[in-house]
Structure formats: structure tokens, C-alpha cells
């Protein structure tokens, strides 16, 4: 149950209380700002290797390889914005046709590049926000062509370089003003096609290339700086994208930044028919560690470029900047929030275990929501986030819980007639994002690799939802199944298949989703005492399934609900699963199958004044003399809420109750 203030808790138990409903709309997706890129510059520069960085004064530094002269073209725009001179470049050093890097921290900036000889990394540094650069230093040499380089500057002056010489990746650090020796990574590849790095606790890396089998890969990795990874050690390489040899798909030119959250751009190239070099962008929630690798399904960016887009920005307040030689884009990292509370005529929501929806009717006699593409109402658009908090006017003023349910607006309709004009918003909760995610390719997990939570986190991540493990079962940790997702399959079907393996559940909430085992526990709230019951219905039924059999390749296990078998004889459910390879797994699967069946039916409903903190899966105690119940425990498996100002005012909730 959501935490409530003492005043709100007191108010919701009063026989007469004044409702308060807070409804807002913002341009967010599951609590993360949706980036709306605005192109500020379109030029004629040749598309080639490039980089961008933003020092502490908010100036935008850009560098690119000018192929006609084999030199670095550089620019610093002091106050970047619409109308800035993004087409004005100065010439720096001679440069190879290879990647180059810009990094900045405070007043310092670093430019790293590969000279014409192709086998060195040279740097130039600035201490005046990139306005001028010092002399060239050679910091690394190699026996092979250096095709990619990326750089990070830390506030303490530490510089970090990562570069690819041939197919080998090297890292090189300057600490205490002294450059160390370049160290090769502990992995191998047949080709490296791009590097990116950003410092956020550790050195976070994106590496594009081709592995030893010829498969194109885009990896994420962490080079330790002591936060989550030991200093100067490599994490494993984790796939962000992959393409098998012979598929004609490759990845290159990654760009990574941690501004409001982890955000990554890269280029996916297809050389078949019809060929393309298309930037893709992806992100995931900052509450996850970078190692969680829970990237959203990459989204295509409306551009064709083989050299990608450089992503940068000063901080979480934004804006975020995108750059290529012939283009500059900007996107705010904050979003306007539109408060609709005063215009709400009706509000209803239905939350179920596998999805929720909301409907909000707004008055529009003032015409405020007539043209939703402009003005304050412009934030109302398909995909925007609708948040409502159901509360009361308390002794402390209007109050609603801070962590209110959030929904995704799917559409709206204007209505007029009978002297009334209204707009109705239709929204669904984050389960709808899971449902709408479709696998673009085959995903496969070999047996023994990821456990159920990790696979679920991947699927929810692809839908843009942050899934946290808040207490999954031992079985969910132990099961590391061979599993595949087929192209075209939707996320809901995949999640249903994974959830069916245990009794664990996913609760979608305000900021994401949590995965846990719904164990029998203490009640979180009582109805029928201080909190009145308006009306209720309680049912009893025998079990739909009271005997489970699980068949593995060489093992069979059963679980029984003997009391119910005594009443109804056995009602059997069988499961065949090649992933069940041990007796213990089979027994746990059989027990989980029965437990899941036990939790599934709805046993009744309870209508009452709104409990502002009620959440799905909460255990509540019900006392209802008329039904012969005294502190009977139920699990909340559905929550309906109705609020209306028109006609007879309405403010009530209906709980669907299930087994604990």
C-alpha cells in the first residue's frame, strides 16, 4: 500500500469527507522525459567522423573530419540555440579518415584524434571551455590503424581514452597529470566500428564491431572506476544489438551520454535491398545500473547517415544536444506539466493484474482543450503520461499520494450537446506498452544463462519500463530456462509465458514495475471498522486445479491440495517443460503451478469510500458482520475508482478480492 500522511489516512476514514482529485498530463514515458528533437541547423558539410561535447559554461563544442583537406574542422558555439552560427568552422590539425573524440568537464576540454599516419592518438587540451587549445601531445601509438577513439574528462583532471587499433580495443588513463600505458581489452573481435564512453560512477562504454564469428554486435560494457566495477577492470560485454553473419546488418558510430538517464545512439546499416544507414536511439531508467543493460527497443531516427549522431549535454536539467557535421538538434530534458484537476468532471479507472485503464472527462465549455496541438493543451497527445492522485481535502489542505498511478494516453474525443462541451481522455497503464512491444527479431537465451527475472527485465526494458526485483521466489532465481522470443510476438504474450512458470507477479506502479512473490503476510489495511464498507459480496468456490504434474526430460513431480481433493476429487493440470531438469525444480514448478491457480480466482468485491493508498496485491482484512466475516484476509486483485462531479457526486472505490 502506498504511504499516506496521517491527515490523509484520517480523512479517508471519515463518514463525510471532501474528495480531492489531482490530474496532470506531462510529456513523459513511464516517468522519463520524452525527448522532442528540434533541428536547429541544416548545412552542407560532408558527412564524416565527428564528435561533440559540452563544457561547464554550456557552450557546444563540435569537431569533424573535413575529407577535402584531411583536417579537423572545429567550432565552439558559446550560447547554442536557434540561429547560432553552426556553419562556421575553424581548421585545426591534419587528421586521418578515422574517428575523433571530444570530452569536457568544467572549463576543461580535450580533443583526441588520429593523425594522418593513422597509428597514433594525439590530443589537444583546453582550459577555457574550448575557446582555445594547447599544443598537440602524442599519447598513444599502435602497430595498426586506429579507426575509433572516444574520451572522457573527469572533474579531477583524470582523462580516459578508449581506442581501437585494428580489431583490438585499448584503454589509456591519465591520473595525477601522468599518462599511463595503454592496456588491451580482455576480449577479441574481428572488427571495431565505433566506440563511445561516458563517466557516471564508472566508465560506461558502447562498442560496435564484428565478433569472431562474423556477427555484428553492439556491446555495452563497464570499465571500472570503483563504483560498481573494480578499478581498471572490464565487465563482461553485454549485447545491445546483434546481427548474424550474412545478414547484411552492421552497427557503428555509437554515442552514449548519461544526462537524465542512460541514452544511446548508434547506426544500424543494412546493405541488402533496400539498403539504409539509419540512426537508432534507446535508453533505460537511471534506477537500474548500467550493467542491467535493460535498453528500450531502439527507435529509428528520421535520418540517413553512416557516421551517426553525437549526443551530449551539460547535465540532467538539459537540454540534450545531437550533432552531425551538417546538423544540430536540441531537446529539452524537462517537460511541462499540465494540471487538469479543476476541469475534471468525471474520472474512472480500472486496475487489474494484467492491465489498467483510465477515463477522464474534462469540461471544455471554456474551449481550453479545443485545439490540442497548440497552447497549454499541446502537452495532451497520444503517448503522453496521465497521472492522477485520488485524495481528500484534509486538515492540512488538499492531499493526494505522491506516487500516484500513471497511464499512457491513447486518444481522446470531443463531445458536445445538451448545452455541454467536454473532452474525454482515454488512457491505459504501462501494461499497454508491454502489449504493444513487438519483437523485431529472434531473441534467444541458452539454458543456464539468465534467470526469469533477468529475462523479464529485458522484455519490460524493451517496452521502456523499469522492472525491479523486490522479492522474487527462489524458483524464479533458480530457473534459467532455454527461452526464445519469436519475431512479431508481443510483450504481453511473452510475459505471460514467463510468469506462468512461477507464482510470482509483476506490479505496475508509478515509476515502473516490480517483480515479486505474493507471499501470505500481514494485512496492510482494514475495512469494516474505521473504514466503512458501502456494500460487499464474498464468494467461495472449490479449486479449479488441485493437483499439478510437471514433466521434465527425465523427471516427474506432483503437488496436491489434499483438502480440496477430498471434496472434489482431483482436478489435474499438467505442464511439460524441457527446462525442468532436476527433482527440486520439478517439485517447485508443481507447487508454483498450484499456488498460481490458488491466487487466480476472484472471490468477491467490496465497495467503500476511496482508500487513497490502495494498491494491487495488497492484503486487506475485512470485517462484515452481515457476511459473517471478522478480520478475514483477502488479496486485492482489482481496483476500480469512480469520481464524478456531475449529477449526483460520486467518489468510491470497488476492490476485487482474491485469495491471500
Amino acid at each position, binding site marked *: 500500500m502506498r504511504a499516506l500522511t496521517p491527515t490523509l489516512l484520517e480523512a479517508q476514514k471519515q463518514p463525510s469527507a471532501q474528495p480531492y482529485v489531482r490530474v496532470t498530463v506531462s510529456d513523459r514515458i513511464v516517468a522519463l522525459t520524452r525527448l522532442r528533437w528540434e533541428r536547429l541547423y541544416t548545412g552542407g558539410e560532408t558527412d564524416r567522423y565527428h564528435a561533440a561535447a559540452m563544457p561547464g559554461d554550456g557552450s557546444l563544442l563540435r569537431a569533424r573530419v573535413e575529407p577535402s583537406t584531411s583536417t579537423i574542422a572545429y567550432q565552439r558555439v558559446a550560447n547554442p540555440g536557434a540561429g547560432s552560427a553552426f556553419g562556421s568552422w575553424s581548421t585545426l590539425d591534419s587528421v586521418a579518415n578515422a574517428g575523433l573524440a571530444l570530452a569536457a568537464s568544467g572549463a576543461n576540454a580535450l580533443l583526441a584524434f588520429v593523425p594522418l599516419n593513422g597509428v597514433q592518438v594525439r590530443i589537444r587540451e583546453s582550459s577555457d571551455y574550448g575557446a582555445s587549445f594547447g599544443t598537440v601531445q602524442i599519447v598513444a601509438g599502435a602497430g595498426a590503424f586506429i579507426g575509433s577513439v572516444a574520451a572522457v574528462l573527469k572533474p579531477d583532471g583524470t582523462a580516459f581514452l578508449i581506442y581501437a587499433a585494428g580489431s583490438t580495443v585499448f584503454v589509456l588513463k591519465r591520473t595525477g597529470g601522468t599518462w599511463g600505458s595503454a592496456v588491451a581489452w580482455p576480449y577479441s573481435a574481428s572488427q571495431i566500428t565505433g566506440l563511445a564512453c561516458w563517466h557516471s560512477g564508472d566508465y560506461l562504454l558502447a562498442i560496435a564491431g564484428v565478433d569472431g564469428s562474423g556477427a555484428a554486435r553492439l556491446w555495452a560494457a563497464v570499465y571500472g572506476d570503483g563504483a560498481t566495477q573494480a578499478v581498471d577492470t572490464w565487465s563482461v560485454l553485454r549485447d545491445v544489438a546483434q546481427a548474424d553473419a550474412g545478414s547484411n546488418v552492421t552497427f557503428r558510430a555509437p554515442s552514449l551520454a548519461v544526462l537524465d538517464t542512460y541514452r544511446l545512439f548508434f547506426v544500424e546499416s543494412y546493405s541488402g535491398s533496400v539498403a539504409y544507414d539509419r540512426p537508432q536511439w534507446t535508453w533505460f531508467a537511471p534506477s537500474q545500473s548500467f550493467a542491467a543493460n535493460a535498453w528500450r527497443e531502439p527507435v529509428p531516427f528520421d535520418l540517413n547517415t553512416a557516421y551517426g549522431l553525437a549526443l551530449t549535454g551539460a547535465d540532467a536539467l538539459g537540454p540534450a544536444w545531437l550533432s552531425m557535421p551538417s546538423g544540430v538538434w536540441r531537446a529539452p530534458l524537462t517537460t511541462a506539466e499540465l494540471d487538469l484537476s479543476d476541469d475534471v468532471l468525471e474520472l474512472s479507472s480500472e486496475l487489474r493484474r494484467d492491465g489498467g485503464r483510465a477515463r477522464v472527462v474534462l469540461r471544455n465549455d471554456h474551449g481550453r482543450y479545443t485545439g490540442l496541438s497548440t497552447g497549454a493543451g499541446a502537452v495532451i497527445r497520444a503517448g503522453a503520461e496521465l497521472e492522477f492522485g485520488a485524495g481528500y481535502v484534509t486538515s492540512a489542505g488538499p492531499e493526494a499520494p505522491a506516487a500516484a498511478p500513471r497511464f499512457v494516453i491513447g486518444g481522446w474525443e470531443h463531445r458536445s450537446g445538451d448545452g455541454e462541451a467536454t473532452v474525454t481522455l482515454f488512457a491505459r497503464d504501462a501494461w499497454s506498452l508491454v502489449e504493444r512491444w513487438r519483437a523485431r*527479431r529472434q531473441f534467444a537465451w541458452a539454458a543456464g544463462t539468465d534467470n526469469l527475472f533477468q529475462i523479464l527485465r529485458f522484455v519490460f526494458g524493451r517496452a521502456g519500463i523499469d522492472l525491479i526485483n523486490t522479492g522474487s521466489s527462489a524458483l524464479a532465481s533458480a530457473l534459467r530456462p532455454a527461452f526464445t522470443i519469436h519475431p512479431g510476438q508481443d510483450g504481453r504474450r511473452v510475459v505471460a509465458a514467463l510468469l506462468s512458470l512461477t507464482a510470482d507477479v509483476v506490479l505496475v506502479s508509478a515509476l515502473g514495475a516490480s517483480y515479486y512473490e505474493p507471499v501470505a503476510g500481514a494485512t496492510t489495511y482494514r475495512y469494516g471498522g474505521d473504514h466503512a464498507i458501502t456494500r460487499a459480496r464474498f464468494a467461495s468456490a472449490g479449486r479449479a486445479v488441485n493437483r499439478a504434474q510437471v514433466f521434465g526430460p527425465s523427471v516427474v513431480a506432483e503437488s496436491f491440495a489434499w483438502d480440496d481433493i477430498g471434496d472434489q476429487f482431483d482436478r489435474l493440470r499438467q505442464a511439460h517443460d524441457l527446462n525442468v531438469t532436476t527433482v527440486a525444480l520439478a517439485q517447485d514448478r508443481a507447487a508454483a503451478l498450484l499456488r498460481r491457480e490458488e491466487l487466480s480466482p476472484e472471490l468477491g468485491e467490496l465497495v467503500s469510500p476511496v482508500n487513497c493508498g490502495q494498491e494491487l496485491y495488497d492484503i486487506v482484512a475485512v470485517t462484515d458482520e452481515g457476511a459473517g466475516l471478522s478480520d478475514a484476509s483477502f488479496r486485492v486483485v482489482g481496483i476500480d475508482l469512480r469520481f464524478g462531479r456531475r449529477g449526483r457526486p460520486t467518489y468510491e472505490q470497488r476492490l476485487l478480492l482474491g485469495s491471500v
Partner: protein
Amino acid sequence: MTVRRGVLKGFDSATYTATVQVAGSLAVWLSSVPVARNIAQAELVAGRSCAVVFLEDGNPKDAVVAAVWT
């Protein structure tokens, strides 16, 4: 149980398993899919169409390449 269309991308005669491009997956193949033993090795030519029966839709090991055609 589902049946999916695919394209044979490779075949391992030692394990009698195939690598299959399931229709709709542009760049990633499904590897080590068991092949029906009643299909002759000579017929398992890369590039041919195939039908894969997934006895359990989510488990690539609980599947079989049941037909191959050109």
C-alpha cells in the same frame, strides 16, 4: 504448439540441428534447432524454406525442423 516458417541458414550433421532464420527476423538466426531425422542430410541446404514446429513456443530446444522445401 506453433508452426513457424523459416529459412535454413546452416546445418550441423553431427548434432542433426539447424540454424534457422525464423520469418520476420531480419538479422538474427535461431541456432541448434533439432531437425527431424526423417529429413535426409542432403536436403538440408542453406537457403531452403523450412517449417519449424515449436512444441513449447518459448523453448527453442523443444522444437523440430519438420519440413524443408525449395
